[in-house]
């Protein structure tokens, strides 16, 4: 065989291509191999940091971040004599289910055994992986027994589910308001659909099914509700339930309904939108009297710890905290305490401790419920956090506790 310059060149090229492609794929394995002195416990913040749900993602991430700092400043946690520090790693899932799965896989690969996430749509596809890899997860999700059930041992719900909000508080509020014609106008996503299911069930149980005159689902980024409002207002409702709109969506919904001459009342029981943007976008006059759950009026905070949290959050981020920030803060404190109490990193042991552990946190006593609770049908497991649930109404642009 004659060795020509060309064939040498070819061989060199070939070797280069092989080395380059293998190197590119292996590059993540090469980075960050140095082991830290202090042992780390990693929690993955699998949240949307861009896109329409970004404000929820930041709020949740910041809540967990504050909790992580708090525990670390107190010296971390000790397990079997060794000190562990918490580390939060971020992954932007853009509120897209596939990206959330990718994020979880990345997190697992980076050694995260714990996770916080939000949104039913993005949590649902993660469940098989959470169960398989035993990732202890605190998640802000509304749907009911679809998420919290005996099969999903590692998934803890930080926010009150629709069974606690719509099915219990909601019915109370509807009765108090004397609602005769109810319209559900909610987001066309997992949350909205599960809210609808819960609402219909609750109405049935309370023999009020006939008050629901219409249900509509529209995309979460809808700007102009006029067409769909024209459709539902033709049924002359006296109450509109928004379910789980973020601030801008709810504000536009209310504003445009008022512009079309709607005189009735509004509730938004699943979501806890920020009041500032809600009032600004919707207009102070329009949003007057809107009833929401999980929102604390800044001047009526129940405990000193909560006031401190509020002040610290304001100082750091120049805005009021959102509901899922303190809910995930409390849940993380609880999780961290459980890890220390379990004296083990075995997820099974940790979750067993979590279910029975009661701690005092921002809003007083925090505990997990769900098992054998007639109000929470089908849960069968203590994986639902509870804490006092305020009912708030907007008055003159400010939230006050609804009597």
């Amino acid at each position, binding site marked *: 065989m004659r060795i020509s310059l060309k064939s040498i060149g070819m061989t060199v090229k070939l070797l280069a291509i092989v080395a380059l492609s293998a190197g590119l794929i292996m590059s993540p394995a090469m980075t960050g191999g140095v082991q830290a002195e202090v042992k780390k416990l990693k929690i993955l913040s699998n949240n949307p940091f861009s896109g329409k749900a970004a404000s929820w993602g*930041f709020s949740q991430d910041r809540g967990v971040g504050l909790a992580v700092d708090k525990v670390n400043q107190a010296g971390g946690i000790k397990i079997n004599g060794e000190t562990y520090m918490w580390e939060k790693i971020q992954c932007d899932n853009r509120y897209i289910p596939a990206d959330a799965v990718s994020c979880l896989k990345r997190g697992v690969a980076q050694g995260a055994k714990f996770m916080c996430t939000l949104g039913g749509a993005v949590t649902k596809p993660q469940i098989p992986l959470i169960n398989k890899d035993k990732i202890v997860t605190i998640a802000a999700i509304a749907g009911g027994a679809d998420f919290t059930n005996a099969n999903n041992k590692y998934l803890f719900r930080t926010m009150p589910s629709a069974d606690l909000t719509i099915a219990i508080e909601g019915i109370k509020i509807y009765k108090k308001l004397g609602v005769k014609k109810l319209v559900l106008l909610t987001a066309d996503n997992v949350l909205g659909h599960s809210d609808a299911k819960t609402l219909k069930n609750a109405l049935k149980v309370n023999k009020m099914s006939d008050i629901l005159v219409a249900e509509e689902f529209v995309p979460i980024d809808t700007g*102009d509700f*006029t*067409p*769909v409002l*024209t459709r539902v207002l033709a049924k002359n409702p006296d109450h509109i339930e928004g379910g789980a709109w973020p601030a*801008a969506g709810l504000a536009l919904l209310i504003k445009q309904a008022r*512009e079309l001459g709607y005189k009735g009342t509004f509730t938004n029981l699943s979501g806890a939108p920020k009041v500032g943007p809600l009032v*600004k*976008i919707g207009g102070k006059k329009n949003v007057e009297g809107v009833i929401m759950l999980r929102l604390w009026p800044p001047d009526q905070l129940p405990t000193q710890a909560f006031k401190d949290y509020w002040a610290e959050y304001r100082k750091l981020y120049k805005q009021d905290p959102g509901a899922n920030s303190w809910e995930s803060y409390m849940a993380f404190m609880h999780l961290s305490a459980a890890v220390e109490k379990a004296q083990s990193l075995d997820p099974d042991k940790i979750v067993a401790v979590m279910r029975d552990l009661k701690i005092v946190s921002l809003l007083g006593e925090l505990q997990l419920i769900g098992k054998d609770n007639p109000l929470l049908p089908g849960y069968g497991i203590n994986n639902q956090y509870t804490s006092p649930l305020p009912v708030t109404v907007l008055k003159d642009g400010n939230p006050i506790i609804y009597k």
Partner: protein
Amino acid sequence: MFMQMAVTGLVLGSIYMLVASGLTLIYGIMHQVNMAHGVFFMLGAMATYYATEVIGLPYFVALFAVVLVFPIIGAAFERGIFRNIRHIWLAGYMATVGVWMLMEGLGWQVFGTEQKAVSFPITGLIRLPGGAVLPANKLWVGLIAIAIMAGVYYLVGRTALGRQLRAVEQNPRAAELMGINADRAMAKGFALGVTLAALAGGLVSTLYSVDPSCGSTPMLKAFIIIILGGLGNVTGSVIAAYILGFIDSFGGSLLGYQAGHFMGFGLVILILIFKPSGIMGDE
């Protein structure tokens, strides 16, 4: 309800017409599909927000400031990025995508994630016969949109600048022989399109909310419109805007939101397949 749907359709149509005008113009003059249209819409809305709510200017003064500032921004983008590549259609398209992503990403960094609102100075409710209602702000935005569109018609159809722009569009080489600086004319056209987008942002955002991605949905609507109307055809896009307004209004009210959305894109595909030159095309 019929009356209400018709009114909503008219209002949406006027809004869509304004939102699509800049996009039509830029395609008409430069044959460039401007994917950064939504970003300029957003920047216009943000500029209006900062001018009114932060600096405290009266709303219409803020709008006037937008009209003064955005031609410069548009011309800068044209000179900096698009001029050298505009003869390659894909490069032009992708470059506008790049500008879109860059500016929206920066927008989230600079303006933050909290949604903002600009309030329109005129409020109130107008009751129409047939049980329909029309909010005063929507009426005014619609009327201003029609006025702006009339202005665009005058500018393009009756003024020397408009003649030059059309000359460049029809034959850049012959336009050069007339003593028209084709490069500069295209920069002017692009600046005009960007200003219209920003103006639409400043006006339409008063009806909705403002955040760094608030231009995406209007841009989607604008795209449907300019395809339906025939790319670059101003009259076609005006007609298409009202068609889409009525589709959204009647479809959304009678069949539900997603149906309206689906019908819009369905119509686009049908038009593109069977009459790519649009409803007003010559073919």
